[in-house]
């Protein structure tokens, strides 16, 4: 027993080395996914976030057709970077609604005039209340909502050019 105990510190040391090494090769996943994926959208009603689009309410989602719900903000740089991809999705026939987080209508108008407006409806969430209710942890994020108003998929971060096909596929599957 005593002879075995002598090796205990070394074994512990090696175990720690192993732990740290695994941490080096497999960095932490710091993305926080919403637990509401697979569940219905929480109910909300938001005023219009842009001057030429109506506001948004959760009741407008259960229409039998899948839609995208894009969480964006005019002050968010990656949101400008994903604008061309959203335009491409719209051109492919996907209907996109949006929620503008902590924003003001003139700022949203200027943002859309500059980067294009792929949205059918835009809700203004001035105090991130709906964002928190959705379990979303930042901008931009994109939810695929199926025809029954359930969240089928959550895309965290900007949609890159090589994500477009995958999002299209998710929308098709979410009938």
């Amino acid at each position, binding site marked *: 027993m005593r002879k075995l105990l002598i090796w205990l510190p070394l074994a512990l040391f090696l175990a720690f080395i192993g732990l740290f090494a695994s941490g080096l090769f497999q960095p932490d996943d710091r993305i*926080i996914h919403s637990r509401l994926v697979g569940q219905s959208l929480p109910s909300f009603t938001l005023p219009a976030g842009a001057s030429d689009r109506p506001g948004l309410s959760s009741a407008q989602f259960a229409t039998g057709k899948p839609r995208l719900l894009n969480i964006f903000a005019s002050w968010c740089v990656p949101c400008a970077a994903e604008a061309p991809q959203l335009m491409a999705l719209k051109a492919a026939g996907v209907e996109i609604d949006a929620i503008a987080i902590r924003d003001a209508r003139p700022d949203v108008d200027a943002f859309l005039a500059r980067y294009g407006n792929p949205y059918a409806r835009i809700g203004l969430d001035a*105090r991130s209340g709906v964002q928190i209710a959705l*379990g979303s*942890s930042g901008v931009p994020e994109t939810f695929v909502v199926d025809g029954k108003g359930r969240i089928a998929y959550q895309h965290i971060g900007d949609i890159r050019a090589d994500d477009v096909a995958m999002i299209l596929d998710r929308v098709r599957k979410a009938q």
Partner: protein
Amino acid sequence: MKPFLALLLAILATPLAAQTALPPAPWADRQIPDARQEREAKALMETIRCLTCQSQSIADSNASMAGDMRSQIRERIMAGERPDAIRSWLIARYGDWVSYEPTAAPILWPLWAAPLLLLSLGLLLLRGRIKRRRRQ
């Protein structure tokens, strides 16, 4: 002196694009008039993790989303909601991750057990020492 001042200002300036221009939500940095409710709200905020600055609670974070969460928590407590209910509402959305306080989930049992294990290991070692000394 001038370059030093410029450097100092650069350090103090917050990145423009990272935060919104909107003022903080009404109850983000304002206490509830009722002291008991404010105590409840503060205690709850200290147990909720900030989504932007992941190693701070929302009580400590200056991120705009943390401010919005503080405001929402104060408003809901003023409306009579129980802190436990708000906490579980948040956990239902963000998972146990949003709890800044370790929960009693089975995956954390080793964490709670570690102090007891280490203490008993120490006692065992101490007993061995004392026995050896007696023999001498």
